[in-house]
């Protein structure tokens, strides 16, 4: 299968810059600087239909277009490599195999946006990826592909790698900007949107690693070709699906968007492991509602998954087999979010521990039907938090109550977990 992001991968090691350039790397950059204007680059990205790969799925080109061309003051591009969504590890795999795609994608994005200084905000635990990126940036600078007057085009930009000192909430774009500025990593209110007033008050665009890494291919091969890679007409491009859980060979695979869930599990990952049958999965990381066997044929694309009642998110597929207690799985997930709350707003700081408590009571067999109803109310009310952490945290709870209500009620009626 044709690969966009993994095409330069070498088995067991990181690709070198010469291998990357030999495979066509940095040619899109040359083409853009010589033949295209920033507006043309931006338009091509818009036409490609590339949607943000960080979880929200917002069209990348459209996000870029929110920065007014005539807005005075410095502009910034931030690559969000603070990959902390449970079940998601695609950015690490990509950067450990090929950091040059991101570097090239970022330079192209800087060119399109008029940015002179950009940042890669990378989580503290990704040491190998950070080392790779630092090396890639130094090599690019040495080759005249980054820094002053890139390829004698008159365009200059630079990239800084910043290691995060914080936790999960730093992955939220406005909290990320606060963290970069050296403040407490609480999210900011929107409006004003980062495209108008972001990092240090200037226009800012925050994109995910995978989104930026797709840009070189789009520039080189064109928007239509990128679109055509997807399995269904309304989708465009490929996606890194990082599968984990009870499958035979979990791993990160680059597959076309719109591929049915069953194909991901059966073809790419060898099916369920011995003795396991598919019970449920998280289609896009821990903050998405569950998919059940009735959703195995759903095309894995942003809109199709949304129509089926969940979210594609980051594409981190976590598969559960028939021996998994869904209440315990949900409890595990919500415990993570309750710990990672930044503490700014009441629903997340106090409401998530309340949900944890309710799930603990139900799992221990001390629950009541009123508590189940209370859980349902929390799914509704936690939408009104300051940022998207709390609503995301309730994704699995929403899935639990929609698809596994009998299991929950069984906990209550039996007075214990049926899977013990």
């Amino acid at each position, binding site marked *: 299968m044709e690969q966009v992001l993994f095409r330069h991968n070498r088995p067991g090691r990181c690709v070198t810059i010469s291998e990357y350039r030999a495979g066509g790397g940095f040619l899109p950059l040359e083409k853009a600087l010589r033949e295209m204007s920033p507006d043309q680059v931006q338009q091509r990205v818009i036409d490609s239909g590339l949607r943000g790969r960080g979880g929200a799925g917002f069209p990348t080109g459209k996000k870029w277009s929110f920065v007014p061309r005539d807005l005075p003051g410095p502009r910034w591009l931030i690559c969000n490599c603070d990959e902390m969504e449970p079940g998601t590890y695609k950015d690490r795999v990509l950067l450990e195999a090929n950091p040059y795609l991101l570097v090239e994608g970022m330079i192209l994005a800087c060119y399109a946006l008029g940015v002179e200084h950009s940042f890669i905000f990378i989580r503290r635990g990704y040491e190998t990826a950070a080392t790779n990126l630092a090396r890639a940036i130094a090599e690019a600078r040495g080759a005249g592909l980054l820094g002053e007057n890139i390829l004698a085009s008159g365009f200059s930009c630079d990239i800084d790698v910043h290691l995060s000192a914080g936790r999960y909430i730093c992955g939220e774009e406005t909290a990320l900007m606060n963290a970069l500025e050296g403040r407490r990593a609480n999210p900011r209110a929107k409006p004003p949107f980062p495209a108008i007033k972001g990092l240090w008050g200037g226009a800012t665009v925050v994109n995910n690693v995978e989104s930026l890494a797709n840009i070189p291919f789009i520039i080189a091969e064109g928007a239509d070709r990128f679109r055509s890679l997807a399995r269904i007409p309304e989708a465009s491009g490929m996606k890194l699906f990082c599968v984990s859980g009870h499958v035979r060979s979990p791993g990160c695979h680059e597959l076309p968007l719109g591929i049915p869930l069953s194909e991901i599990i059966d073809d790419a990952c060898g099916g369920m492991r011995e003795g396991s049958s598919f019970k449920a999965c998280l289609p896009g990381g821990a903050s998405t509602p569950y998919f059940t066997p009735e959703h195995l044929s759903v095309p894995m694309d942003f809109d199709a998954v949304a129509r089926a009642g969940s979210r594609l998110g980051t594409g981190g597929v976590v598969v559960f087999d028939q021996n998994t207690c869904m209440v315990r799985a949900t409890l595990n997930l919500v415990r993570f979010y309750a*710990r990672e709350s930044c*503490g*700014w*707003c009441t629903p997340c*700081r106090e409401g998530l*521990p*309340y949900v944890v408590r309710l799930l603990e009571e139900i799992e221990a067999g001390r629950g009541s039907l009123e508590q189940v109803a*209370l859980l349902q109310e929390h799914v509704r*009310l936690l939408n*009104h938090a300051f940022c998207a952490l709390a609503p995301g945290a309730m994704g699995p709870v929403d899935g639990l109550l929609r698809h596994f209500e009998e299991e929950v009620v069984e906990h209550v009626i039996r007075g214990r977990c049926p899977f013990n």
Partner: protein
Amino acid sequence: MPKLIIDDIAVEAAEGVSVLEAAKSVGITIPHFCWHPALGRAGACRVCAVKLLDGPVKGIQMSCMLPAQEGMVVSTTDPEAVALRRQVIEWLMINHPHDCPVCDEGGECQLQDFTIACGHGTRRFVGPKRTHVNQELGPYISHEMNRCIQCYRCVRFYQEYAGGSDFGVMGSAGKVYYGRFESGQLESPFSGNLVDICPTGVFTDKTARFRARYWDYDMAPSVCPGCSVGCNITPVARYRELLKIVARRNDMVNGWFICDRGRFAPKGVNAPSRPRTSLVDGVKTGREEAMDALLRRLGEVAELYGEGSIAVVGSTRLSQEGATLLPLLAESISAGALSYGLSAAESRASSGAISMLTLENGASIADVENADCIAIYESDLREEGPMLLLAVRQAWRRGAPVLLVGENSPLEQVRGVGIEAVQLHYMEEAPLAIFERPVVIAGMRHGDPRVMAVLDRSGARVACLFPGPNGHGAALLCAEHGGIPLEEALAKGKVKGLVAVEADIPAELLAGVPFVASLDWRETAAVQAASVVIPTAAWVECDGTYVNFEGRAQRFSRVMKPGLPIKELDPACHPPRIHQGDPPGGDILPSWQVMIEMIRLAGEKVPDGPFSGSWANLTSLDPEGEGEVIRGRCRRDS
């Protein structure tokens, strides 16, 4: 001016206000914690939820974060909004301790009020509460972190508004903690405002710990006598004892806050050593007898030493009522010298200031906050007017440069509010002409009086920091009636009889005066040296007027009746078990009433009231209003 509908009421909101403020303007109080009129919005507590039924925005929104827009239809009573507010309170109550009965905030607690307003009742959460260890933040503020609802008001005030850096927020999620990064006393001179802004009992006034409840307080609108800024305050009294001071809002003077000196410094009102009965040569008598004795002795002094041997001295803490009557009293007893207690330097500076100030060129605190350049001339604002530092900081936050002129303007004063300032030697060096709204804050203790001419020409608005709460009023009267500096009045040895009305005179100056009479409520050197003492009412025990630094006359009202605090009556601190009509130690009149009595006893024409003639427009001042600006009256009259 967007027009919107809130709960079926048509509202025309001011430009740029939030839906919460628009609702407040028509009397609808939406429960809130993190929003504060001076600190702005935060969006942290999520209690102010309303439902937008129609208009440019729809659905559940936080009313403090949403600017009011044309055509909005807002419902605060929609069941979804009510359910969300009730749930938010339930979430806050998960960790809130069960200590209302022992918490000082009870009865004046925003959390209590809004919990009832949102309809939360029985606890249904099954689980433990998180607890915290408290810090010792000093002798003034008590810290109880269990009660915190994480509204972030304290850190927003302390760091953003007041520029402090030793206090802040630590931790994340449910472990968020507000405290000092290192143990010790809070450093900001405005830390006391944490007591006012905290919506629960995390920060309470330690000096009034466990004293009384809000519904029992005796309160009245008053003015702080600490300095010439004249911040509006509400003193709180109970059982004839002054318990604490709470800030009162005045948008033209102090905004929403006051400084720690005004809030916590001992006021002397409860001091056991206060003069409470009239004394003649140390023997307790009634007031009538004391006044008779006083006039008689003064007559003897005049006979012995001739005309002009009597001096009448007031002070800048004497209310304007007393200050206007002082020249009349002096005349009635044929005094040769009239003084308002100013030093020679203060006198020169004050008279220069009042000749320079007009209605147009005087700066109020609101002018300081909106300035685009500020120069502080020969002044340490920490001493002469702390609240001006806070106003300077707000201007600095908006980009105004701050210049410190002269060697008596220390850099530390602005460092304490987080400002970087430029230091200059002379007022002429300040480039005020290039700014549109420059303000100069001039100290009155040091500095060259000729600088007043420079300031007059500079086109800047000027704030002159007169000494004392009524320094400006005293200076105006000095000019009107020829008052002289204190040392000039007493140093020559000519004065043989002295009447000190609420005056602070150093003991050395009193040593050479054979007869001293003192009308005061504090035990000053003059009271100790006096042969005749007549007690007067303290500032919380009577109505009065202070004219602040910008010439704003403000009325303060009586908070409590004079009398010995109940604590002083019995060694066991018990109230007495006897019936008594008047409170013991309560036969005390305000100084101006005593002066009118003396004028009558001296046989002179008694004025109708404290304010007569050209001062009559101050007779009916509203204590809850914004005061009346009277600066420049001497320039107008001349």
